[in-house]
């Protein structure tokens, strides 16, 4: 076990990426991601890492640049937030269709409007169907670990897909907190050199991103879907390998006091640890409350989620974004579809909360449990609500 050090998480993420022998980074600064861009460009400028830092003029260009550079066989990294991610949007499915193992940190931030800059998940949710592997982290340690692990998953020969790592903006990025930073030797041992599936090189020309009509488009979409589903096996393997090397184990779905729980709560991202404190408070009062944390958003871990929640009577799904005019939060609809065919399944309640940076103290989580427990006639089951909204 390494020594615990303290550092701002965004800076630590850049340090971790700096250990990964990247060839190229193209990052356009945007709050609250900017400290990643700034520190990574410092590492390059100071000669601490041997990589090209491309100072692009927008996020659209950042994503275009990493697509080109990954296609040329370079290990390529980018990071963004909110409007920047929205600006990249049209390129995200292209990166995954071309099977380019780009890795990207997303310092999650509310999407305008109104302009906000603080944390929620409304930036990543519209990108859900882009064909990227999508991971959520809950603390600084995980932000660092996943930033390194992502390269190995993405570049695995059976995966070859881009990965995004969702790090709650401010709540995580701007937090100085303790963690262990792997050493260069350890990362070298863990992360093999990047072997691309094809490269753009004049000596052996290939075409990437060619045109395809209706005669092939369906087959290509099917292949992409299979690739993303199959990536789960590799993700599990790589996480296991990480656990063996570093003693920190990661699972697609993690539980806290969930085994005998009658009421469960499901969270994604940095809210998990605060929610854990609410569980302790409720348990102290004799309430059988438990927590389920969803770490892997794509590929969606159907089996693991079913196993984690099937025995509960009630399940509170929390969402940090909404599907306007739709069925509630995006996590809520995903969980519902996962459980549709199950005979035994909990009643599900959906709270949309922590929007645009609204703080969520422990008391809000216990409040959600209390509200659900008070609904003895199950009248509010299967509905969604904006938690704490002023009526």
């Amino acid at each position, binding site marked *: 076990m390494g020594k615990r050090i303290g550092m701002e998480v965004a800076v630590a993420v850049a340090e971790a990426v700096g250990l990964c022998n990247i060839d190229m980074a193209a990052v356009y600064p945007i709050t609250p991601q900017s400290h990643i861009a700034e520190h990574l460009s410092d590492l390059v400028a100071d000669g601490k890492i041997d990589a090209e830092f491309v100072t692009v003029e927008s996020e659209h260009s950042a994503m275009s640049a990493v697509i080109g550079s990954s296609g040329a066989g370079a290990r390529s990294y980018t990071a963004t937030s909110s409007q920047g991610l929205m600006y990249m949007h049209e390129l995200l499915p292209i990166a995954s*269709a*071309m*099977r*380019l193992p780009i890795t990207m940190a997303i310092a999650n931030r509310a999407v305008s409007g109104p302009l906000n800059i603080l944390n929620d998940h409304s930036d990543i949710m519209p990108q859900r169907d882009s064909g990227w592997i999508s991971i959520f982290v809950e603390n600084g340690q995980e932000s660092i670990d996943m930033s390194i692990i992502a390269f190995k998953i993405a570049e695995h020969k059976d995966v*070859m897909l881009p990965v995004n790592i969702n790090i709650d903006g401010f709540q995580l990025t701007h937090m100085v907190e303790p963690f262990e930073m792997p050493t260069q030797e350890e990362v070298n041992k863990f992360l093999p050199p990047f072997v691309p*599936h*094809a490269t753009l090189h004049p000596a*052996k*020309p*290939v*075409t*990437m991103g*060619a045109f*395809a009509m209706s*005669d*092939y488009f*369906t*087959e*290509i979409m*099917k*292949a992409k879907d*299979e690739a993303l589903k199959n990536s789960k096996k590799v993700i599990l393997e790589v996480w296991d390998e990480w656990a063996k090397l570093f003693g920190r184990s990661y699972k697609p779905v993690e539980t806290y006091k969930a085994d005998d729980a009658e009421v469960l709560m499901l969270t994604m991202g940095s809210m998990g640890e605060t929610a854990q404190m609410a569980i302790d408070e409720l348990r102290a009062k004799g309430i059988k409350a438990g927590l389920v944390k969803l770490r892997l958003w794509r590929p969606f871990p159907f089996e693991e989620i079913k196993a984690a929640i099937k025995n509960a009577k009630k399940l509170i799904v929390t969402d940090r974004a909404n599907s306007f005019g739709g069925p509630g939060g995006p996590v809520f609809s995903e969980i519902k579809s996962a459980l549709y065919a199950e005979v035994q399944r909990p009643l599900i309640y959906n709270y949309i909360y922590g929007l645009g940076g609204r703080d969520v103290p422990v008391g809000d989580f216990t409040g959600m449990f209390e509200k659900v427990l008070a609904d003895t006639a199950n009248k509010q089951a299967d509905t969604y609500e904006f938690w704490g909204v002023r009526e």
Partner: protein
Amino acid sequence: MALKTWRELPIGCVVSEPGSASEYHTGSWRSQRPIWDNKKCIKCGICYVFCPEGCVQQTEDGFFVANMDYCKGCGICAHECWPRAIAMIEEG
């Protein structure tokens, strides 16, 4: 040629054979063809530059001809040739 199944597609649909577009004979699209009048031609090369198929070639004497396997009859060469050395005539 049988179409490939999704399993047979290369990763990322990379086309690994260079220049395979030459198998695609766009000449079959043509309803008009360009005819060069070398008496008017000043060998400026504009037709060579503008042809979207890249099928205009320079001959040894410095004049230009189109490769009819690929000339799709779009007429851009004729439009761009300012000494009006190229005329488009109906096929067939």
